[in-house]
């Protein structure tokens, strides 16, 4: 007989609010562009609002760069490359980067609060993951700057020149660190564009870079919309395009640079399989499932959005998962208890809701925990779909939200086939207590990052990037340097 559940969610899980104070944060009314070592007003004269997705209030205004601004930024980066940065020894480049890492650490709390304000992610994540990892990336690559010759045996690495970088809205500061750190360690100069919905921490990063005394023009920080990004992609004097974002936009960018000398690295979409075998430690696996799909509200390219549970343990896993969902705290991103914050933007919420509707129309069974959502802001309950099949759109397409499509399997061959049956190949997860099974699975799964008995772990020393339509090139580790170097 099945054991009856005795968890009383109504009494056991009422946590006292513990909001992080914003008293120490003083946002400016307007943020300018950072070009050639100076904070400059955009030539367009246009500023746009950036809002807090948790309450829809305007936080401040941010400059929108136009083609002239980009041209100025690229020229500044080129000049810095020719006159200062390429003349500097690796050791000195590294010392500047160490400074950046240190100042981010010093201002970490401020960064974390602004990241959560601007993007809606729980302070627990911005404080413990985004910001410390960003600092760690600068620290890690700082040490590479004077050791490049050791990274590529029998080859003479050379910097490419000016790198144009475009980052997404889901991990703003962290993605900036992933892009800028290896680029300048390798001796390149940078023009980087923040995303339209989460530009703020990049403006803070500009302050850090300024404070670190980096030579003018080595890092130029631009804000704007998609069109602004296209000016970078199309600028003839850019030598390298690094992009993180959707596969759809990635293809548009690639199309724009064919036939040119521009080197590219693309970190694109994903639809990761997270596979639970019957011999897995199920409680840990359930934590892994939750972390896999609800981390950062599911706004994660490597999110474990397709769950495959071995049939024999399906009922048990599903019940545990539902219980766990009921205990998640959803709400104020600045509350230290919060597990799931706000959806990043109105548009994204619309997109997620569209997919939930599609799931229902496809005949899938929905489960959402019983919880209250704040009245203002953009919110989505963590969502499970069962009774889905491999051909359903919610199984095939990247939703980029807290929506999990759950399927079952019987044999290893079956689950490998299902897991690999996707145009994406960014990441995958495997849960089992059997070592030989792990190695069989990790060898057969076509994905760039495999988490075995864990999920969504990141580190500057660990190469990250996809197979197939999840893009190409690696960020992190010694491998990440190669994207910013050329060889004779």
């Amino acid at each position, binding site marked *: 007989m099945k054991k009856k559940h005795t968890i009383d969610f109504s009494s056991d899980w009422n946590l006292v609010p513990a909001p992080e104070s914003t008293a120490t944060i003083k946002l400016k009314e307007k943020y300018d562009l950072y070009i050639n070592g100076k904070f400059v007003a955009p030539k367009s004269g246009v500023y746009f609002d950036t809002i807090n997705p948790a309450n829809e209030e305007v936080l401040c205004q941010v400059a929108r760069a136009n083609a002239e601004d980009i041209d100025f930024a690229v020229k500044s980066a080129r000049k810095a490359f020719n006159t200062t940065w390429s003349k500097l020894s690796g050791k000195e480049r590294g010392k500047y980067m160490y400074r950046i890492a240190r100042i981010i650490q010093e201002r970490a709390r401020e960064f974390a609060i602004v990241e959560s304000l601007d993007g809606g992610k729980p302070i627990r994540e911005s404080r413990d993951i985004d910001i410390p990892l960003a600092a760690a990336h600068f620290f890690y690559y700082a040490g590479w700057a004077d050791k490049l010759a050791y990274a590529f045996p029998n080859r003479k690495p050379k910097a490419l020149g000016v790198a144009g970088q475009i980052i997404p809205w889901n991990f703003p500061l962290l993605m900036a660190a992933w892009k800028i750190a290896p680029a300048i360690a390798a001796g390149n100069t940078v023009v980087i564009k923040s995303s339209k919905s989460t530009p703020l921490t990049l403006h803070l990063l500009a302050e850090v870079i300024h404070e670190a005394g980096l030579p003018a023009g080595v890092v130029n920080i631009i804000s704007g919309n998609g069109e602004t990004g296209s000016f970078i992609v199309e600028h003839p004097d850019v030598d390298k395009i690094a992009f993180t974002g959707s596969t759809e936009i990635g293809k548009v960018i690639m199309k724009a640079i064919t036939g040119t000398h521009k080197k590219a690295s693309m970190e694109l979409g994903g639809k990761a399989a997270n596979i639970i075998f019957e011999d897995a430690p199920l409680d840990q696996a359930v934590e892994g499932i939750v972390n896999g799909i609800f981390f950062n509200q599911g706004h994660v390219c490597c999110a474990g959005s397709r769950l495959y549970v071995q049939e024999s343990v399906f009922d048990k896993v599903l019940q545990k998962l539902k219980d766990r969902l009921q205990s998640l705290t959803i709400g104020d991103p600045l509350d230290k208890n919060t597990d799931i914050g706000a959806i990043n933007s109105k548009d994204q919420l619309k997109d997620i809701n569209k997919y939930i509707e599609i799931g229902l129309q496809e005949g899938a069974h929905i489960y959402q925990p019983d919880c209250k959502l704040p009245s203002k802001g953009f919110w989505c309950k963590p969502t499970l779909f069962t009774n889905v099949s491999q051909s359903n759109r919610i199984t095939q397409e990247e939703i980029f939200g807290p929506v999990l499509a759950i399927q079952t399997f019987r044999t290893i061959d079956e689950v490998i086939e299902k897991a690999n049956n996707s145009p994406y190949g960014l990441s995958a997860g495997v849960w089992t207590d059997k070592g030989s099974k*792990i190695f069989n699975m990790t060898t057969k799964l076509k994905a760039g990052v495999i988490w075995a008995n864990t999920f969504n772990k990141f580190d500057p*020393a660990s190469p*990250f990037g996809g197979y197939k339509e999840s893009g190409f090139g690696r960020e992190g580790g010694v491998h990440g340097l190669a994207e910013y170097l050329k060889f004779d």
Partner: protein
Amino acid sequence: MSRIEVLKTYKIFIGGKFPRTESGRYYPLKHNNKIIANMCLSSVKDFRNAVVSAKAAQGSWAGKTTYNRSQILYRMAEVLEGRKAQFIAELETQGIAPKNAVQEVELSIDRLIYYAGWCDKYVQIHSSVNPVSGSFFNFSVPEPMGVVAVVAPENSGLLGLVTQICSIIAGGNTCVVLASEKLPLCAVSFSEVIATSDVPGGVVNIITGKQNELINNFASHMNVNAILYCGSDKKVIKNVQDLAIENIKRVFIRENSDYFDAKHDNLYYIFDFQETKTTWHPIEQIGGSGSGY
């Protein structure tokens, strides 16, 4: 009375078999206005069949032990060595000077040996255990991309072709190769070397024909994971890059080059066609941790 020579029918090589093109078409290969051979003018259908073979063969080829792959590449060199005279004669028939012909065949053999030696070593050079901050064992290894479509160098019928093929298959990929249009004879004869060297059927597929008829399909086929274009035509390069976007095929360009140059003994030719896979696993932290000896 002098003996009547038996002339060879030059075929194509798909899935370990030697068909003529399904299209029944041919193009005359001439030297000094004399027809040397009626080469297969392979069709898009031939190419697609070859991709099916290459894809079917890839998993088990990548799954062979590296020692085994190494020996198979070495075997190719052994067999080519034994058939040197045939290849030299073929090169000369196509207008290569005798001295250069000897050199080209010998260097082709040596290049096979070079890449044979890498099969069980390149993984070590490219792999890493990544010292992450946390209680995890984390490592990265190279893995073959899968099926590679190759437009072989037009000006180096044997050596250029061998260089591409052996560096690609050394890394566990399989390939479909379009031979040089002007110098195709050795490509077909080299497929006979492949067929008799324990290379499983489908690992290497070689077709002959016209680049401009086939290259769009090489670049756009959804079951091809990477494309290598050997040549310097800017228009072709852009076209290949454009068509490859559909399934984000990896694109590599090797411009016209002197394949006699030792720079083509190049470990990085193997790495070009490798993906990097990173694996994480937690490390248990209990009892005794922190104690030294």
